[in-house]
């Protein structure tokens, strides 16, 4: 699969922090890409370089196989920053029209698309209202519409669900899936892990300006598995059943065990053992770590709060 974005050794140093410190990543065309990291990891700085707001100190970005040229490629990108912003005193319709025209749509074209989206999101009655009249969730929806209005190849969403109720969050989520199916590439930046597992194909985890994880959600969970298994039995488990060198018990309930397999043995060895003991195995499942577990494990090994440092430029 071809990559829409290829970043090579990106660096951006500020006076007191190495915000982005030598990051390379590929984002496949049409994929939903998750950019994760704790607060202050450098996500926003990285996104600002991809949207052309910042120039990298070092390294370069390829957009669609060619060197990224902000002036030309910017209209192919839709960016919804974490800090939402709209003109408070401007009418909703005018505002959407203005932002769409800045992205290069003609007035007539923009008008047609805005109307489509407003119908879809049931926002028709908002047209003449001002942003200051909207609730937080409403302005969030408006912000999403203005981000995707010009059918961008690359949609960057920084925490798109914050402040949305479940109904509206699902509405936006469905749109994200639809846009992805229609060929848009989506970068999704968040620290809500359950959403990432649900939505993203590929993730990169950043911490302190560096990339510490890169892969598909499935592969990463496999890579970080700890040989844990949950076994459910038909009959109660007795202590003598667990005195064996194949595994050790992590936790135990009446008819359930969570075990950690010892090195050098296979799952078949364990199943064989219980069958020989005459215990009926009801189910046997591997426990894969959630992204949340992996995230916490990786980030916790580093000092929690980012410290200021002097950066030699």
């Amino acid at each position, binding site marked *: 699969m071809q990559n829409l974005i290829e970043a090579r050794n990106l660096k951006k140093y500020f006076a007191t922090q190495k915000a982005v410190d030598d990051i390379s990543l590929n984002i496949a065309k049409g994929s939903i890409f998750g950019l994760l990291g704790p607060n202050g990891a450098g996500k926003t700085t990285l996104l600002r370089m991809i949207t052309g707001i910042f120039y990298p100190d070092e390294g370069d970005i390829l957009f669609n196989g060619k060197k990224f040229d902000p002036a030309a490629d910017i209209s192919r990108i839709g*960016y919804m920053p974490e800090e939402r912003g709209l003109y408070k005193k401007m009418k909703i319709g005018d505002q959407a029209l203005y932002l769409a025209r800045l992205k290069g749509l003609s007035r007539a074209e923009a008008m047609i698309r805005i109307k489509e989206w407003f119908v879809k999101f049931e926002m028709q009655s908002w047209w003449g209202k001002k942003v200051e009249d909207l609730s937080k969730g409403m302005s969030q929806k408006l912000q999403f519409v203005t981000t995707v209005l010009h059918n961008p190849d690359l949609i960057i969403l920084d925490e798109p669900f914050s402040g949305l109720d479940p109904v509206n969050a699902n509405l936006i989520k469905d749109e994200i899936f639809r846009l992805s199916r229609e060929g848009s590439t989506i970068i999704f930046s968040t620290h809500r892990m359950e959403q990432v597992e649900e939505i993203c194909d590929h993730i990169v985890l950043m911490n302190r300006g560096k990339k510490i994880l890169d892969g598909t959600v499935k592969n990463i969970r496999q890579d970080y598995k700890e040989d844990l298994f949950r076994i459910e039995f038909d009959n109660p488990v007795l202590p003598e059943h667990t005195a064996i060198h194949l595994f050790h018990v992590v936790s135990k309930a009446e008819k359930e065990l969570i075990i950690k397999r010892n090195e050098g043995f296979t799952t078949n060895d364990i199943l064989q053992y219980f069958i020989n003991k005459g215990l009926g195995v009801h189910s046997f499942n591997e426990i894969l770590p959630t992204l949340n577990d992996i995230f916490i494990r990786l980030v916790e090994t580093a000092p929690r709060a980012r410290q200021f440092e002097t950066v030699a430029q």
Partner: protein
Amino acid sequence: MSKIGIIIEREYLTRVKNKTFILSTFMLPLVMILFIFGSVFFAMRSREKQRVAVVNDPGFFRNNLKSDSSSVIFDFTEGVDSLNYRSKGYNGILYLPEGDNKTNYELRSDKQFGLEARGYIERQLNKAIENNMLQERGIQKSTLDSITRVSDKSVQLDNIVKEKNGKAREANAGLAYGVGFGSGILIYITMFIFGAMVMRGVAEEKMNRIAEVIVSSCKPFELMMGKIIGIAGVGLTQFMLWIILLFTITTLMQFFIPHDTLVQFQEIQRNQQQIPGGANNTMILKILEAKTTLVEGVNWGLIIFCFLFYFLGGYLFYAALFAAIGSVINEDPQEAQALMLPITMPIIFSFIILTSSLQNPNSPVAVWASIIPFSSPIVMMGRIPFGVPDTVPYWQLIVSMLSLVAGFLITTWFAGKVYRTGILMYGKKATWKEMAKWAFRKA
């Protein structure tokens, strides 16, 4: 349309369509007229009549101290002293002991006399002493009176300036002063109004966090310039409306002037002489004359061109700096105050130079201040009505204009650099030193 065009359109339309714009366009001239009439009215009122009792024993001043029925009346009634002058209806009592020692003179009153009244009394005393001495040396009272009649009329000095083409032109210093002061003060006020508008607009975009959305669609520089140019358009629209308003009013005024008065006036103009007694409507004739002097006494084409040039140049020069400030401040308006000081100081200072250069348009201070772009928009507009090229040689005008253009290119470049960093920085207020650092760093 280009992106900057779309931004200009938005900045312009949102402001011009605003009710406050329409209101301020029509209210401001009204407020100014009220202000002028109000200050004249209060100045007239404050000239109240002062009755002064004079205690001057041998009556040395009795013959030569002249009262003015509208301001100060001297009264030589007997039996008035410092205890009873109030009850006898006097505002003050003037003690003039005999002798040449002028420092012994004394004015006692309950309330302090105004500067004007005191000046009048002092002038009259000097005059009276002078007249007394002349009479003592044998000048007849009648001779003295006839001299006084002539010397009391003030001289009207016509300053005939010889132009390069040999044609003599009557320089109207009063008119030049008025036009210079008017356009200087107008540039001064609008620079503040529209500069602050730019600063508020930029700060608002930063506060709303929309700046980040916009700069992901266009260059920060385009956003900044779009705002500056859009607001310049608002300013020009306002001037245009004022000119139209003024033109309409003066045209309408002519309909209210009787036809034969107009004919009479044209007659007078053609013959270049007053028709004594013939004018039954002297007031209107005077207004018409004033209007003709106003229209013909000044090179309006040049002045309007220069005014627009210096308004735009000065505005662009300072608006960029105001935009830079807007981009670095946060929620606290106090921060803006502190950062604005280095920008408002030169503007206020140029206004002070303007007032002195109107008195003396060729002083070195006036010449230099009208060339340096920090003050040239205001000071040069004060000098131009005195005549180009007599008072302001062509080279000065050209150097001044070129340096203003160079000046705003530099401030815009600097502001652009500061702006692109400041607009996305939250939390800490930047200092001018930090801003200078941003300007010289690669993006």
